[in-house]
């Protein structure tokens, strides 16, 4: 039998953080506001409301880790920080593997730190389609506030690694627009470990920004507690009941306002299993995923892509067509797992690890899927649209063309059974033929839209601030709110919307506190 190594040690906890070790029986606590989930949305709401004087409790299913707990042991980090060890999948053909964080700080602990405002064209679309009049102007100061808090900045030149320089070399050779990535980091040191918990503390994830701020202003965080349901009195939310993981103990929080910030997969399931029904019937629908595929390019020269910042650049040439490219180094184990090769062939391929550039793309999707609640648990369903598959295939061709322009000698494709590309001509030919999507390896880390906001209670799940239509004292403050996919990395949008929601609660404090 294998014995789990305690790779993540629980260090001294700051006051206000409670873990499973603090529970010796069932507990009932009171607060003004209970926030479920401590990720991008939840931690932001919690910090803003705590500073305004609300008594805030955050309940988080994941555990509390600190920067010193983040080691170079990739698998241990995945087991601890990712929900279900990262093995989560939306059913479809092809299936879409997706990943979510489960820890204090949510997915921001394992994300890449790309920090972008919602594009203007998307906000204009939200105005048109969701009735969110004035949202662009409204969000402006909130973006600025978030950017200050999580220190959104360009990269220090010395932290940029060779894989990213090669991406830039290729884009420059093609004459394509490539920009330095804005990331929430304070002097990112270039360890390329963002997806496994930043071990230097440079990434300003919620864990080291909004969470300590919330605690500083008096919020309490109950880690290791999975909220089973939101309690209610008729249509009015009255608190939450949860189970302390690994124990038989329960935690009940009685609160005047309940904010669900469990992410776009878990918020609809929680609301469903708590018995909330919305007039639109849209809860759980409208799931967007920004499907993502990657290519692996092999160069003659040494790349050593694991030294240097994660995704220092983004190729924006095709953003209008819904495609954004970036270089994303993966540790050997994760990369080996993605190859169909085995035996000696796998060894020969992996021996070239230090000469590989892994590059991927984000696709603004047109399909929408759904989160169904089965036995109280969420199951995502998502069918990649033909148009999105065609766009992704075109993206693979374009990205390969760029990588050949940078000097790549061979490119491995994300399509089962497809031969490797050996030249830019091969890459261009790839764009001319149709590859059936069912054998593709599609992944995503951006799930959005399952409790979409908007002014029409017949079409939207929440109002313009996240208050769930036809309920009382129940808000959503996470990626579920997006009326449409946004075509760029979503964290900053989630935080700006959460800040705006907190402002709304403060402005209407009497209503929420009475």
């Amino acid at each position, binding site marked *: 039998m294998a014995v789990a190594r305690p790779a993540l040690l629980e260090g001294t906890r700051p006051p206000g953080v409670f873990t499973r070790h603090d529970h010796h029986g069932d507990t009932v606590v009171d607060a003004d506001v209970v926030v479920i989930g401590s990720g991008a949305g939840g931690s932001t709401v919690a910090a803003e409301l705590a500073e305004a004087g609300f008594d805030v409790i955050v309940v988080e299913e994941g555990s509390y880790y600190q920067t010193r707990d983040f080691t170079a042991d990739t698998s241990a980090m995945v087991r601890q920080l990712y929900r279900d060890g990262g093995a989560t999948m939306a059913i479809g053909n092809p299936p879409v593997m997706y990943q979510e964080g489960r820890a204090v700080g949510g997915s921001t602990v394992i994300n890449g730190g790309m920090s972008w405002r919602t594009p203007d064209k998307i906000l204009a679309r939200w105005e048109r389609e969701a009735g969110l009049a004035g949202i662009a102007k409204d969000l402006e100061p909130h973006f600025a506030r978030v950017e200050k808090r999580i220190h959104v900045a360009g990269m220090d030149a010395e932290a940029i690694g060779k894989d990213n320089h090669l991406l830039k070399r290729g884009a420059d050779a093609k004459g394509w627009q490539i920009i330095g990535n804005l990331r929430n980091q304070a002097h990112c040191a270039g360890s390329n470990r963002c997806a496994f918990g930043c071990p230097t503390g440079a990434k300003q994830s919620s864990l080291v920004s909004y969470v300590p701020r919330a605690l500083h202003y008096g919020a309490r965080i109950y880690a290791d507690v999975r909220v089973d349901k939101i309690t209610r009195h008729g249509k009015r939310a009255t608190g939450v009941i949860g189970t302390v993981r690994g124990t038989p103990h329960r935690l009940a929080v009685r609160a005047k306002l309940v904010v669900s910030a469990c992410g776009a997969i878990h918020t609809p399931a929680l609301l469903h299993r708590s018995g909330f029904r919305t007039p639109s019937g849209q809860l759980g629908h409208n799931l967007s995923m920004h499907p993502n595929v990657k290519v692996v390019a092999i160069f003659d020269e040494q790349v050593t892509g694991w030294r240097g910042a994660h995704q220092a650049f983004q190729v924006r040439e095709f953003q209008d067509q819904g495609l954004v490219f970036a270089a994303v180094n993966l540790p050997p184990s994760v990369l080996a797992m993605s190859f169909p090769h*085995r035996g000696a062939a796998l060894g020969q391929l992996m021996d070239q690890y230090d000469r590989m550039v892994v590059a991927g793309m984000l696709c603004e999707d047109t399909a929408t899927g759904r989160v169904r609640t089965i036995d109280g648990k969420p199951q995502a369903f998502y069918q990649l649209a033909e148009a999105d598959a065609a766009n992704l295939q075109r993206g693979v061709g374009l990205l390969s063309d760029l990588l050949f322009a940078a000097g790549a000698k061979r490119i491995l494709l994300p399509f089962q059974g497809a031969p490797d590309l050996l030249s830019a001509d091969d890459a261009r030919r790839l764009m001319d033929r149709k590859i059936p999507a069912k054998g593709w390896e599609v992944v995503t880390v951006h799930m959005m839209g399952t409790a979409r906001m908007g002014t029409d209670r017949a079409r939207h799940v929440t109002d313009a601030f996240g208050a769930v239509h036809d309920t009382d004292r129940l808000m959503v403050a996470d990626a579920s709110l997006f009326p449409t996919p946004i075509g760029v990395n979503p964290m900053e949008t989630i935080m700006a919307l959460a800040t705006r929601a907190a402002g709304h609660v403060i402005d209407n404090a009497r209503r929420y506190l009475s």
Partner: protein
Amino acid sequence: MSGYRHSATGRRVLESLVTVVCPPEAHGLASAIVDHMELTLAASPPMLGRAFATGLVAYDLGALPLHGRRAHKLSAERRERYFASWEHGPTPLHTQFSHAINQLMSLSCYEMPAMTERLGYHPAPWIDEVTRRRLTVYRDDVRRQEAQILAPDPLRPGVYVGKRRREVG
């Protein structure tokens, strides 16, 4: 956590597959690789662990009608042929299961220090080096950011609801 544990048969099947899936340099690491797979599966959804365990039994017994022996007892050459027959059908379930084995075992294989050493992949000293550099070169900026995280900056200046639960600095 699913609490997944390999059964004795499951372990024997997986150990026999290390020579099929992993590169020759890893063949001496079979036991550690299979241990690591157990940890990975234990962190996965329970349903996945159950399906995997059932698949291993089916894989082991499935060799009987074809080769007259259970899979974990096959010779190296037959082991290879039998695994390849699962990779190429006869049903999508066979293919999916062989892919799952390939994925999980490749992941565990390249988590072995001896294997990452071969690739020159040494993240731990690199992390130490860049962490030190950051805290030396940018010490003041880092401190400024830490202070900013806690500094008062109310969203609605002048508006303060409720009574502070406890004193804040």
